[in-house]
Structure formats: C-alpha cells, structure tokens
C-alpha cells in the first residue's frame, strides 16, 4: 500500500472514530460535536461568506510572510557575510529574537490600531526571525572554496551575491521560510482574535462568543488545511524554481 493511501485511511479512520464517539453519548455532544455536525456548520459558514474571511486572512498572511522573508533574507545574508554588519545588527536582533511574537500584539494595536497594516507588521515581525537566523547561519557556513571560486571568476559583487552566496545559503533559507509559514499562521490567527472585523480569527472569536463549537472546529480545521497547503505549495514552488535542491536534504 502506498504512503498516500495509508495516510488517507488513517485520516478517515480518525474521523469515523470521532463521529462514533461523539454520537455515542460518551462525551457531551455540544462540547465535542461530530464531524458531520462540524461539516454542516461549515457549509452554513460557507454560505454566509466565510470565503471572504479566508481571502482576507490569506492576503494578510501572504503579505506579512513575503515582507518578513525578504527582510530576513537580506539582513541574514548581510550579517552572515559581513562582520561589520553582524557587529551592528546581530546584538539587537538577538535581543528581540527570544520575544514571543504574540507578546508584541498589544503594543502593535496601540501603535497601529487594528487595521491590515498592524496585522501585516506582526506577521512579518514573527516571520523575520526564523528566516534571518537560518539565512545568517547558512551564509556563514558556505564552504570558503565557493566564495574563492566566485572571487576568481567574477568581480561583480551582485553576481557573487545572487549566483554564489544566495544559492549556497538556500537550503537553510528554505528551512527558515517553512518555520516562518507556521509562525505566520499563528500570528494571523492571534492578531485577528485580538481585534478584527473580518478574517478566520475573527470568525473563531465570534463563534466562541456564540458558543458555536462546531463553527470553531470548522474554522480551526480550515486554518490547519490552509497551513499545510501553503507549506506544500511552497515546497513545490521551491523545487520548481530551484530544481537542484532535490539533490539536497531540506
């Protein structure tokens, strides 16, 4: 049996077990609704426009992810390859890095309100650190012979940065971005919970206030599926754009 088929069977078995336990009366059905009830609630949510919430949450997430990734890669390459840049920037980054990203949300709300800008900022802030640290380490660990070869074959710093340092650091960068994707999902959810008028996090907070456990579970399942899908699409895109990475373990 293939791995995919095994995976599907396991998921179906869990759902069936959940359905059976929930309907058997062993647990409180209103606290632990059956998958069929969650699906029905989900259908109602879809009819009432949850797709728009998904679109808004995903657009916030993608913009934050891209901003955090681009800044993380740029500064990571800089601090990884330049001792001066590392001396200036690393202490402040290392000081901020242990901060739980969700802890900054109240401050962000005070500074920027509850608009899209605040949410994008908090997502980018969270994504920046894993991307930065992985890029920093990856670019520091480039075998010196790659750098020497680049120095011997070209004088262009731009070519050295884009054709040597960036690809040589790429396996680490990919790991950083994948960690960033998971953090971005946490941040979009938490920032929408903390204050929003649209988005999946907002939907979950409304469902919570209305004590609609079935809707909460549906929205959480949606978040989980979107997270897994984003990570999968990222991996596929990376392998398409950088086919040589399939020979590396990432």
């Amino acid at each position, binding site marked *: 049996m293939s791995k995919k088929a095994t995976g599907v069977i396991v998921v179906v078995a869990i759902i069936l077990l959940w359905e059976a336990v929930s309907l058997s009366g062993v647990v409180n059905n209103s606290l632990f609704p059956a998958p069929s009830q969650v699906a029905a609630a989900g259908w109602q949510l879809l009819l009432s426009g949850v797709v728009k919430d998904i679109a808004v949450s995903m657009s916030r997430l993608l913009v934050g992810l891209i901003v955090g990734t681009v800044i993380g890669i740029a500064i990571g390459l800089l601090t990884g390859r330049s001792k001066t840049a590392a001396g200036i920037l690393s202490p402040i980054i290392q000081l901020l890095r242990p901060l739980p990203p969700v802890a900054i949300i109240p401050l962000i709300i005070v500074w920027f309100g509850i608009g899209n800008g605040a949410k994008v900022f908090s997502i980018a802030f969270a994504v920046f650190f894993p991307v930065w640290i992985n890029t920093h380490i990856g670019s520091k660990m480039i*075998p010196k*012979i*790659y750098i*020497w*070869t680049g*120095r*011997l*074959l*070209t*004088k*262009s710093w731009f*070519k050295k940065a884009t*054709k*040597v340092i960036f*690809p*040589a650091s*790429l396996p680490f960068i990919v790991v950083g971005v994948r960690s960033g994707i998971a953090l971005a999902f946490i941040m979009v959810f938490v920032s929408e919970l903390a204050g929003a008028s649209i988005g999946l996090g907002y939907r979950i907070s409304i469902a919570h206030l209305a004590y609609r456990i079935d809707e909460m579970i549906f929205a959480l399942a949606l978040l989980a599926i979107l997270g897994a899908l984003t990570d999968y699409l990222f991996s596929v895109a990376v392998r398409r754009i*950088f*086919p*040589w990475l399939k*020979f*590396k373990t990432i």
Partner: protein
Amino acid sequence: MNPYISVENLSVKYGNDQVLHDVNFQTDKGEFIAIVGKSGSGKTSFLNALANLIPFSGTVKLPGAIGVIFQQYAVYPWLTVAENIEFGLNKVPASERKNIVEKHLQLSHMADKKDKYPAELSGGQVQRVALARCMANNPELLLMDEPYGALDSYTRDKMQEWLLEVWSAMRKTIIFVTHNIEEAIFLADRVLVLEEGKFVQDIKVPFARPRKAEIKFTPEFNELRKQISTFLN
C-alpha cells in the same frame, strides 16, 4: 630571459604556525609543474597564496589571469554543467559566450550532459567540468590542488591522460599539487618536493611527450619514483 612566473621569499603563517618559509620558485611559460609533499607540508597553502586567496609575505609575479581547480566543491551544485562553464565569462558578448561554452563542452566530452547538475555526474565528470570552466576563461596559469585525489585509480588514470591531451592542445602553464608521486611524474615536466614549508628538490622529468600510460611500467619511471619517494621519506 625573465621567468614567466616568479616567487620570492614567499611565507605563509596561520597564527603562530608558519606553513611556508621563504619559498622561491620560477617557471617558464607552458611548463607543467607538479608539487609533491606529505600532508601538512604546505602544498595547498602555496597554491592558495599564488592565487592570492590567503595572506602571505614575499613577492609573487604572475602572468595574468589564473584559474584554480580544487579537489572538493570544484563546481557550483546549483548550476548546470553549461552554466558552470559559462559562469566566469562576464565580459564576453552573449553570442560568443555560447560558442565558448559549446567548445569546452566538446573538449570535456560533456556535451550530452550540459543540462545536468553536478550531483548527477560522477567524480571524474565533475572534475572535467571544473577544468572546462577554468579553460573557458582562457587563464595564463592553471593551479590544480589535488583535483583527482578523491577519484578511483581507473578514473584517475583516464583523467590524467585527458588532462595531458587538453594541456597539449592549449599549452597553459600548470602547477599541479598531488601527493601521488606516479601522477606527478606522468604529468609534469618538473617535480618539486615540498617538505615542512620549503622546496627541497626540483627534479626534471626526462620522458618525451606525448606520454602514454605504459611508461608507468618502465624501469626508468620506477627508478624516478623511488628517487622522489626517498626524498619524501
């Protein structure tokens, strides 16, 4: 006549550890020089200093563009064979660049693998790409640091014959570092023995060119091998 390459009082230090001590060296244009020595004798440091990749003291006079081939990480794994060969052709017009790449793909017998990545090639093929990339830049001097050290003996023999073919066609000056005495004698015009950071012997190889692998089994070859081996021990 002035020597083509001249090195005077070259010294290299890593912290308190002096690996090269006032080394002097000269060579003529088109010569094939092999440097042999034990591990830690300073062979790689000598090449890296010539290529200006590490700090050194002393005077080094080189002819112009140089190419370096390393044993490990010889080519970029993120570039295809053709892209690796093209990498250093920065100032060449695009149309000419294509011709140069094509020519060196043919010379290195890699034309049918031009779109492959290094991870899809054998060790010998990777080293052929590395040499093709160097040659595409038309260097005056080629520095080779144990390029065949990681290859099996059959592939190594084939690579040596192929290198001599390429060298005969292009007549570049080559400085070839190896710990393999047989390889040094077979390839070079002169074999220099490096010991504890100093050249202790400079031996002229008397065999006529073109050379075939069979000469490795002649008594003269064996005698020379013994002689160099004695210096190393």
